[in-house]
């Protein structure tokens, strides 16, 4: 695989003039987050502060720093360690707040950024690929790219980090067209799946952290969430849509579930230990909310799991599954996900395989593209807890997942609903081995 990738990289280097030309253009947040190239970000931070930040990684203390990217330097930003179960002091994930010390300061229109150290992901690409999948399905999801991160006055290489767009007002405005509603970040405390917890608003307050209007009263902030949960619990077939729709767009919920189940996300809305890793945004002047994915670095768990794993462990998903109408709608959403992400007609290029060149799915192409972009940087990552062999092995696993997951999901669906549309039927003779190639026989190209 390394030989193949080397050829890919040579071709990428040939395209360097195009990159130089791009640099002359005005830099935007899209330039940073569109993933078109491996970025280089330099965090200027005092050596003592970095030492204290890593030693006290559990504290979440902010430290002043400057962030430099492509010659742009934004001063007096605040950095702190972020994350929960993945929080560590060896290769810490960072939150960068541009307006921590300078009120109103932005960088490329962004108020903050997340630099994810991929502590739990040996491949370093799972989160980025997952978010790209959500976006491809028309869901609001953060943009992500990869960067070589340099730290301190000596510009020491700190490894490959994922640059993640923060879910904040700027994100809401960009993706949903408004930012005056109410945004909450869900915090996992125990297995929970929308069960009704009664009238105790403090229970919700502990789990749904307000991100855009933290100074509101408890009643104003959390009564709408309580009512949404009550509606979910009170809804029964055939009136589920009628009762729940004022609070959640069920079609979008089903697409959300379908993407996560397609990607075998074990730490998402249908996680093995209850719901996790999402934001909830309630639109302004309405009771309707939307789910926004976050931290998908435990996706790609297993290609073989049924795409309705843990549906019964969540009140909302369980009711969708138990309703014949909604189950059919969910399966349709799942088929649409497979068609869009996981079939050779889903927009990927071609891949070279032992049996010859054949079309790649969008997902497969995305995996190969990201891998080729970060490979050298990842193999020289001084702080990753994973060996180069583990990195290669995990990427291989995810690539195989991407190649085969579509067929496997369709097979599962086929057992439930044999009469699938022609366009999503499994490929015959799909192989689990082969080599990736771009559409022109060279580098993997960025999927459209």
């Amino acid at each position: 695989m390394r030989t193949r990738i080397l050829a890919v990289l040579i071709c990428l280097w040939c395209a360097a003039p195009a990159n130089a030309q791009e640099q002359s253009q005005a830099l935007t947040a899209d330039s940073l987050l569109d993933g078109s190239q491996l970025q280089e970000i330099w965090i200027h931070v005092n050596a003592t502060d970095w030492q204290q930040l890593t030693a006290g990684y559990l504290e979440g203390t902010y430290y002043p720093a400057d962030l430099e990217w492509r010659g742009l330097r934004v001063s007096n930003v605040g950095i702190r360690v972020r994350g929960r179960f993945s929080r560590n002091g060896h290769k810490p994930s960072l939150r960068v707040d541009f307006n921590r010390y300078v009120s109103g300061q932005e960088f490329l229109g962004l108020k903050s950024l997340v630099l994810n150290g991929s502590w739990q992901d040996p491949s370093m690409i799972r989160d980025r690929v997952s978010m790209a999948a959500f976006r491809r399905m028309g869901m609001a999801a953060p943009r992500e790219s990869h960067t070589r991160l340099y730290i301190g006055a000596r510009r020491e290489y700190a490894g490959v980090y994922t640059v993640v767009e923060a879910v904040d007002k700027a994100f809401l405005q960009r993706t949903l067209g408004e930012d005056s509603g109410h945004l909450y970040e869900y915090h996992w405390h125990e297995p929970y799946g929308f069960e009704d917890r009664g009238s105790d608003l403090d229970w919700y307050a502990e789990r749904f952290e307000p991100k855009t209007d933290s100074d509101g009263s408890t009643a104003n902030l959390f009564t709408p969430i309580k009512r949404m949960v009550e509606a979910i619990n009170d809804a029964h077939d055939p009136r589920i849509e009628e009762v729940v729709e004022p609070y959640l767009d069920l079609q979008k919920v089903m697409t959300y579930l379908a993407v996560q189940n397609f990607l075998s996300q074990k730490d998402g809305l249908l996680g093995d230990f209850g719901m996790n890793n999402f934001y909830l945004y309630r639109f302004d002047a309405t009771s309707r909310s939307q789910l926004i994915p976050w931290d998908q670095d435990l996706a790609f768990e297993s290609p073989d799991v049924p795409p309705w794993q843990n549906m019964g462990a969540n009140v909302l998903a369980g009711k969708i599954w138990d309703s014949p109408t909604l189950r059919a709608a969910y399966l349709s959403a799942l088929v649409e996900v497979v068609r869009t992400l996981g079939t050779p007609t889903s927009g990927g290029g071609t891949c070279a395989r032992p049996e010859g060149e054949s079309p790649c799915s969008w997902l497969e192409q995305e995996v190969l593209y990201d891998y080729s972009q970060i490979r050298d940087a990842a193999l020289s990552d001084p702080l990753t807890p994973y060996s180069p062999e583990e990195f290669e092995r995990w990427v291989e696993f995810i690539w195989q997942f991407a190649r085969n997951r579509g067929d496997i999901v369709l097979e599962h669906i086929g057992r439930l609903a044999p009469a699938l549309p022609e366009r999503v039927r499994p490929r015959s003779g799909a192989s689990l081995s082969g080599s990736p190639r771009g559409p022109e026989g060279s580098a993997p190209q960025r999927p459209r």
Partner: protein
Amino acid sequence: MKFLRVFVSPWLRDSEIRSKRIDRPHAWCRHSVALATACLLLVGLPAAGQSQSSGEGTKNSISASEDTVRWTFDNAPSVRVRKVLRADLHVKTQTDWRDWASTTDAEEPVFDLHRARVGVDGTFLKFFEYEVERELRDSSQPWRDVYVNARFTRWLQLQAGKFKVPFSLDELTGSMDLDFIYRTLAASYLAPGRDVGVMAHGGLLKGAVKYQAAIFRRGGENVRASEQTDPQSGRTTAGRIVVRPWDGRKGNLLRTLAVGTSFTAGRVPEGPYSLRSKSVAGDSLLKAFNVNGARNRYGAEVHWEPGPGAIQGEIMRARDQRRGQSIDDKDLPDAVAHGWYLSGTWLLTGEPRSGAVHPKKPLPHGFGAVEVATRIEKLTNAGLTQPPFTATPRAANLPQASDRVWTVGVNWYLNDFVKVQFDLIREQRELGGAVMSAGGRTWSRVFGLQFGI
């Protein structure tokens, strides 16, 4: 008298550091009204003692074992063992009623018993003086002055223990002798306060020149709590010299004029340990920022007590190095803070102002002594007065922060033991050259009741 007490105040009773009270805004006692009432009731006890004592013209001896142990009550309960030991018991309380504008403290006007101390001082053998004082309301640092002073000669005495670093006249003035309820901002936040050390001191030229030279274990208690516990805190040396050019010349109006200068030199450990700067109400003017290296202070003072009036002024300057503190590990410009004040008092009842005030006609036989006082002061953290400035801990371009304070007050000395004070305080806080939008100009009123024996 006051000159002597101020100068040697490290081995006399000492004061609470105002910041400790402000740092614990919620520590005010709900029962303080009752305590204040109790203090007022206590007025009668010493007053009665005074009356009896003055009537007899001798000290009030309570015990009869005159040859060995004697109990007396002159200005304070005292026990004396021949000429070997003298131990005077002291009790001090101060209760304040505050009504001030604070941007961070939303409390209603409160009563606050912020000083409740007991202590013992005295002498033993021929050469030694001592003092032990404990603040009952401070569990973290309850011990105030704890030291022994050895008097070898008038020009050389040695003092060891915990006492105030000899810097700033206002800081060295005992809390019961302050002309205002609160110390100046400069003394509260630029002077180092107490620490453990050794000091040589004495008087030269028949007392016209007094000196203090000391070395302390760390940089004083009047710094951020985190700095006090930082093991990298270094030693501090300090020196102070005060001259009274016309001392002892009777009839000369300038005989009480004293001028002095002082310094401290030490090391501040690396960290967010910049000197504090707060308003009278305790609101921070500037957040902590990183420093590292030398910390030096310089001060000059003047004090004059012509008749019933008194004038006092000081200027102080503190400079902290910021070595290797920039984002890129380079040196930042030194952080400089300075402060000054000028105050004046006048005893309307005509008592001469020589150190502590002793009313000619104390209660209950008279009205006591009444004094008016005024003070202007300013505390400044030097910085930029024009943008762009940034208030990050490692910023080179910190904004200038300052607080200019005018105080007008009335002091009523009921007798030698009880003092009632009222201060009206006007503040103007500025940041970056502009008056702060929140709490920039404020009025505060403080009513204080002191009791001390």
